[in-house]
């Protein structure tokens, strides 16, 4: 069964540690510009907003569909879409096709670079200090989401109960 990296936006503090771990492991240097996961950050009127963006390993991958020479293939073990570095010609069709900005052509190597799930042990997940990133079995992502909504519902019930107690008092 495939695993995927999920993002919890509420937990992300925007520390960029995922980018540093990714680029150090995969590109052998500390450089957010070369990371396959990217923290998009905005500062608006004194507040910090951050969102991690990364490859969703799409079921219908536009990068793979658009590649003119078929240099992107899915790894059978991890489910990750992998760029064949020998064959990639750096034409950027995948870059234009990806709806997430999650694949780039590296300015130094001139070939496409994207998340490989680190062969099933993603370093971004390992280093994330807030567990904002998780490596989850693909078929369980929605289960987790559904459980989260019931947790919120129960929390709400608790608030209601406590406020009714207050009213009675």
């Amino acid at each position, binding site marked *: 069964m495939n695993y995927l990296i999920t993002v919890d936006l509420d937990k992300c503090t*925007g520390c*960029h540690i995922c980018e*540093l771990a990714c680029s150090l492991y995969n590109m052998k240097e500390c450089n957010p510009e*070369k990371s396959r996961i990217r923290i998009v950050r905005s*500062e608006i009127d*004194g507040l*910090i907003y951050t969102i991690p963006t990364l490859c969703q390993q799409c079921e219908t991958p536009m990068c793979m569909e658009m590649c003119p020479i078929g240099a992107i293939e899915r790894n059978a073990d991890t489910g990750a879409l992998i760029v064949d570095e020998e064959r990639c010609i750096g034409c950027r069709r995948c870059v234009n096709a990806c709806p997430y900005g999650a694949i780039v052509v590296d300015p130094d190597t001139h070939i496409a670079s994207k998340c490989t799930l680190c062969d099933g042990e993603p370093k971004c997940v390992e280093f994330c200090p807030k567990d904002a990133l998780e490596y989850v079995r693909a078929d369980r992502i929605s289960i987790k989401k559904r459980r989260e909504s019931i947790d919120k519902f129960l929390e709400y019930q608790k608030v209601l109960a406590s406020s009714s107690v207050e009213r009675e008092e």
Partner: protein
Amino acid sequence: MAYLYGGTILRIDVTDQEITRVPTSKYAKQYIGGRGINARILYEEVGPEVKPFDPENLIAFGNGPLSGTLFSGSSRTDMMAKSPVTNLIGNANMGGNWSAELKYAGYDNIVIKGISEKPVYIYIDNDDVEIRDASHLWGKDTYETPKLIREELADPEIKVICIGPAGENRVVFASIQSCVGDSGARTGMGAVLGSKNVKAIAVRGTKGVKIADPDKFLEVCREIHDTVKSAEFYDEVSKIGVMDSEYSYVLSGYEAGGDAHKTAPNFDAEGKTEFRKFWDKFGYKRSGCFGCPVHCMENYRVPQIGNTVISCELYPQLTWEVRNNDMMLWYKCVNTCHRFGIDNTSMAITLAWLMELYEEGIITAEDTDGVPMEWGSKDAILGMLQKTIHREGFGNYLADGMDAVAQRLDEIVPEKRRRGKSTKYWAMQVNNNPMYGINPRFNGMALAYAIGRRSDLIGDYDAFQSEVLYAPVYPHWSDKDKQHAVEHAYKEAERISGLKDAGDPNSYNGKVQIVSWIGIVTGITDMVGTCKWHTDWLFLPLMPEHFAKALSAGLGQEITGEDLIKASLMLRNLERSYEALHGRTRKHDTIPEKEFNNPVSRGPWKGLVLEKDKFEKMKDEYYSLRGWDLKNGIPTRKTLEDCGLKDVAESLKKQGLLHVE
């Protein structure tokens, strides 16, 4: 400089718009980076004849070899100039994203000199450096400025540090703000940048940091992150920051009002502080600096007032220090400090001083533009803050610092009302620098303030004592927890000092060793470009060996913890010699006279006294430990030569300051 470093020091003279580049290798071996390189350049180029706002004064910014890497807390920018507050070393250190970006652009330090004719900002895009017109940015606050620069340059990824109107107006304790929530606020760095007519430094860097042994470096960083996250204090600081500890400091008499403050607010029945309630109501989310697993900062959204990122000393200063219980007023003030670029600590301590003078009947409303300086008064706090930023009325004196205020008040207040003393007698300051609120009647604090390398304690902070001090008032802790905290603090104090009673606030033993050690550790973090919060400075466990391991893997050459300790001591001697050349001697290493032999008035440590003669003995002990002569507190020739500063010994000798050959 193939690894870890950007490789270049950027030098900009804004008078004639000259840009030059110097290889970092000229300094890196001996001075490592960050504060080390800044201090050396300041020593070489800014002599005693230079005044802080002269074109010859420089302001240096530096990251460090570990900035921008996966090392824990790799976010720090150190900045240094001759200070308009103390006329000695001015130094501030801030987090954010800017430090890493500067490294990625290929630079380790930036040195700015001269005075530009018109307002300018500096734009660095990797190798391209440009000095651009900033007339349209002048007067803008520190929230608008980065936004306008990003729009103008059409690049949302640019990282900006800038000054606000306070820096433009040369308010001596103006800050430099980084992106959001981080300030280099102490000792007037914003005023120096403002005096040069430089509004901002905008950086975009994409080159990354090269690592000699990437796999090893990853392993070391994994160990370091695990070490930080497994620390006992990590859980609290990463979940609620230090807002509760700050509150406990206030309650225990350890912080706020230099003990002038005889009452303090309390935790409520549920153990919540005013800060916690404010956080519950207006908190948006936690955030942290680049590369930091601790995320010690709170993001707030308050309707009508605006957004602010808050941590640490921003909590107790404009609240209990000035006896302000109005959380909305506090928030408005902190927001104003951030936006207009001014140090909230200096402001609060200066206001608290005026409030004490007012309470004691020494000054009247007439002396301060008709505003009664009453404790907690909105007009006095927010009103004076705004007047200071814009240099209006009495704010014009406040903007020039405590000495200027004292001079003014001494002129207009009759001597009899002042009880024959200067109004400065009541000011909580060291060398004109408003002290942090932490109570100097605790002996370790007193020593740290007095010998502090920038005339305040925060760099040489005696963290371990604080746990002992505030444990009695910490409401979430059971008696067993309290006992545990105290035992932990005693154990740590003993580990550092080698003395069993070093943790005891009543004892003078071991304090010198602790203050010395914290100074060494924070010297290392400031040189390598990482956050001191991850060390003994704040109960987190990184030791010199951790930094050495990362440097070794990153640089591909063996560096030991001992090497870093030596480098840090060298830096201390360099900075001390610089200050000696600028007139600092033993007599300047002190705290306000009124704090001696004056018992703590409230809290669990009520009655504790700082004895002057024992304080002077601690200074003797500290000087001996550092290899400084006891009479003057200046490094001896042997001390300087042993750490490779022979030329510094020669320049001290030339000035007749090398008292022990």
